[in-house]
């Protein structure tokens, strides 16, 4: 029986492949589509956070209201991005909750400090907006961390390799180095946003490929 057009598409997550499958079409959702969703959602939230930060900086918003609106937006982003990387809400574990809560606790502290500095006139608007971008980067990193933790075991004789892809951003020297390293054994390259000076401003991606051990030897160091 054909699916009524009013119904939303359903999905299945396959831990063995680490991919989502559209139940109606039977097709896998391309990982690029997943990372596009990640980017689109973060961009939309960043626009709102930019507006509220600007209003707060201009004295048009109560410091507490700005702080709580930003906290709420960040918590939602962290959770959504973690779920996206894990394979859906059902796959988030108590360990994930603890990890996300730990990140948020630190971010909330930084937000409060920033709010105090803005209220005291110690932070310019461009500085404030740059920090907002960095907080978004922390939420973005959550996707990549959770995804990495949920990648399936490579089969016998197979291995997983990873490669850094530069995104649309002003790149720090470290990210360019990671890109220039080409394909590397999994675990060598950090997830985007980690271990680089650009920190939360990083807009790189990391891609994975599962190949035979012999093929990996050929690919290491290349970008092919």
């Amino acid at each position, binding site marked *: 029986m054909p699916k009524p057009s009013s119904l939303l598409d359903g999905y299945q997550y396959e831990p063995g492949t680490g991919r989502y499958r559209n139940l109606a079409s039977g097709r896998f959702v391309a990982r690029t589509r997943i990372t596009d*969703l990640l980017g689109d959602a973060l961009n*939309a939230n960043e626009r709102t956070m930019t507006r509220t930060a600007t209003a707060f900086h201009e004295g048009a918003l109560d410091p507490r209201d700005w*702080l709580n609106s930003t906290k709420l937006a960040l918590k*939602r982003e962290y*959770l959504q991005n973690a779920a996206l990387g894990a394979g859906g809400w059902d796959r988030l574990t108590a360990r994930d909750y603890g990890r996300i809560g730990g990140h948020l606790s630190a971010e909330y502290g930084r*937000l*409060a400090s920033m709010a105090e500095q803005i209220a005291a006139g110690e932070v310019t608007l461009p500085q404030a907006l740059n920090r907002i971008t960095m907080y978004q980067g922390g939420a973005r990193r959550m996707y990549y961390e959770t995804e990495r933790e949920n990648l399936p075991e490579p089969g016998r004789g197979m291995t997983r390799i990873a490669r850094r892809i530069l995104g649309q951003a002003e790149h720090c020297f470290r990210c360019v180095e990671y890109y220039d390293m080409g394909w590397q054994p999994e675990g060598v390259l950090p997830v985007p946003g980690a271990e680089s000076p650009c920190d939360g401003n990083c807009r790189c991606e990391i891609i994975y490929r599962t190949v035979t051990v012999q093929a990996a030897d050929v690919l290491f160091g290349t970008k092919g």
Partner: protein
Amino acid sequence: MPSLTRAERVQRLIDLGIAPQDAERIVTESDMMTFINGRFDVQQVQAGAEITDADIADARADWYASRAIPRQYKRLLDAKVADAQA
């Protein structure tokens, strides 16, 4: 900043793109929070960092409501695990 009424604060948040129900919630939470001599109480600020089932439900609802998420992908995060269904 001139003192604003609760309704004015809610309206400002809505004008900045915050959903009305979220704006109400934010102002309610703010009213329970202190900001004295330009300082927050760090314990108050960090109290909401832990993740609860209510937070998951809230983030899930927000994903559905987000204009950035195309209709086709609204149920993506509700995916069921394939192995469990086999």
